[in-house]
């Protein structure tokens, strides 16, 4: 297969992805409302109104809430997220590619 090595590389990244959980803390400017309250002592009004408008994120923060907060549960959520994300992105890339690529 033509892209065998690239696919092996992607699979290796999936296998390793829970390493991304080891860094504790949130990226600057991406705090949730609880964290904001801790850091700032209050939550800006407009921010608190808009922060939780996404009701379709079924894997919030790359986790499956049913798996709990243990490292194992988080890793399992991360694996599922990686696989689901790749499937959706690949499907969309092929879909868009089919439509706009030169014949």
């Amino acid at each position, binding site marked *: 297969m033509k*892209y065998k090595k*690239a*696919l092996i*590389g*992607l699979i290796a*990244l*999936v296998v*390793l*992805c829970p*390493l*991304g*959980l080891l*860094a*504790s*803390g*949130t*990226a*600057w*400017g*991406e705090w949730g409302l609880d964290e904001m309250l801790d850091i*700032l002592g209050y939550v*800006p*009004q*407009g*921010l*608190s*109104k*808009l*922060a*939780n*408008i*996404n009701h*379709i*994120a*079924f*894997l*919030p*923060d*790359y986790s499956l809430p049913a798996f709990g907060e243990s490292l194992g549960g988080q890793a399992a959520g*991360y694996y599922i*997220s*990686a696989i*689901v*994300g*790749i499937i*959706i*992105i*690949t499907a*969309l*890339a*092929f879909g*868009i*590619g*089919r439509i*706009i*690529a*030169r*014949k």
Partner: protein
Amino acid sequence: MHIPDGYLSPQTCAVMYVVAAPLWARAVAVMRKTFTQKTIPVLAMLAAFSFLIMMFNVPIPGGTTAHAVGGTLIAIILGPWAALIGESLALIIQALFFGDGGITAIGANCFNMGFVLPFVGFFIYRFITRGSAFGSRRRWIGAAVGGYIGINVAAVVAAIEFGIQPSLFHTASGAPLYCPYDLSQAIPAMLLAHLTVAGPIEAAITGGVVAYLGKHHPEILKLNPHERRESDEV
């Protein structure tokens, strides 16, 4: 660098959608001319690659985290407009299904990480590598420098979007309504994370993959329409 919902005012979000829309349209128009059937799986793999490396959070001094993006790499392999589409795909999926980056901020995030990052990275790469052989040292150095500067410029642009919020959008008493940090706080914080940690990782990934491809699979680097055009001239 994924701006969540609530950090940018609705007005800012609307402006960023208006800025992003013609860029998406232009990307589709350019790709209609240059994109071929055989580049489709490459775009799919690169978008998936970008999605994956954004899951690798790394710690930043001071208790926050950051991650590489991979946009300059997509731009080097497939051209910057394809990078905008590939990154936008990853960013939209992250926003919708993983809550990483706000739905209201999709325009802003796609502009920052999908447009600014790969375009800056790619044009620096082009500037450094123009006329050099695919396997040459100049190629991977150009890729690494492009990746490093691209992600840092994108971080500054995101910091500007954050930082203008408190002075533009506040209550009558002056309390911030959205992002509470101004430019003097946002720019150093975003630069610290990306100059010290995320930038070097982005540089290593971009330079490393381009070094490997240049040596073993230069045909992949020739997929880029800019490279094709150049080789036609020769």
